[in-house]
């Protein structure tokens, strides 16, 4: 049983490390890219994937560490985390698309090679 807990902790640490890597990639893209559209490109994908990876790792940790032999309110927590994953997968690309459409219709100019960074 102790070995199983060790393996689960290793898997969870791998998930968390991958997630924080993608979130750092998105944040650096938000800082470094030259204009509005490319910044949305960086954050819309990297943040969604990183957050879903982190919450998936925590869900695995909860299922194998807290859930066996617990009361009902603790056993229901993975369902909340599944709802959170579904919400993030639905809402984050939708918000990105709405912001991109608002910027395009109000006339934000895209960056071209050789121009100054916006």
């Amino acid at each position, binding site marked *: 049983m102790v070995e199983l807990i060790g393996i689960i902790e290793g898997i969870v640490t791998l998930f*968390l490390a991958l997630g924080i890597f993608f979130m*750092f990639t998105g944040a650096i893209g938000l800082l470094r890219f030259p204009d*509005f559209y490319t910044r949305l490109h960086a*954050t819309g994908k990297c943040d969604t994937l990183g*957050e879903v990876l982190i919450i998936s790792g925590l869900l695995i940790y909860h299922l194998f560490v807290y859930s066996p032999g617990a009361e009902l309110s603790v056993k229901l927590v993975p369902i*909340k985390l599944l709802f*959170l994953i579904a919400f993030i997968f639905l809402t984050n690309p939708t918000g990105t698309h709405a912001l991109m459409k608002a910027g395009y219709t109000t006339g934000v100019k895209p960056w071209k090679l050789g121009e100054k960074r916006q």
Partner: protein
Amino acid sequence: MIQIFLTIGVLIAVTILLALYRAALGPGVFNRTVAVNVIGTKTVVLLVLIGYYFERPLFFDLSLLYALLNFIGTLIFAKYLERGEIWSS
């Protein structure tokens, strides 16, 4: 395992600071809106990690609520920026 949760939470706070730079100094209202949206979605994950660090399941409900509120706020602000008004009569 608690130490790993604490480390990941601090690293998420660092990424929130990086996004806060864009929210404070970014040119124009659109860049600032993107940065605020990113900060909101990172806060959802930070709340879940805080729930595991203090072992209090109350924080998961808070993070669900925050995810919905952040989405609605971003959507309404994008609509306002696009049309210049919220209620289209």
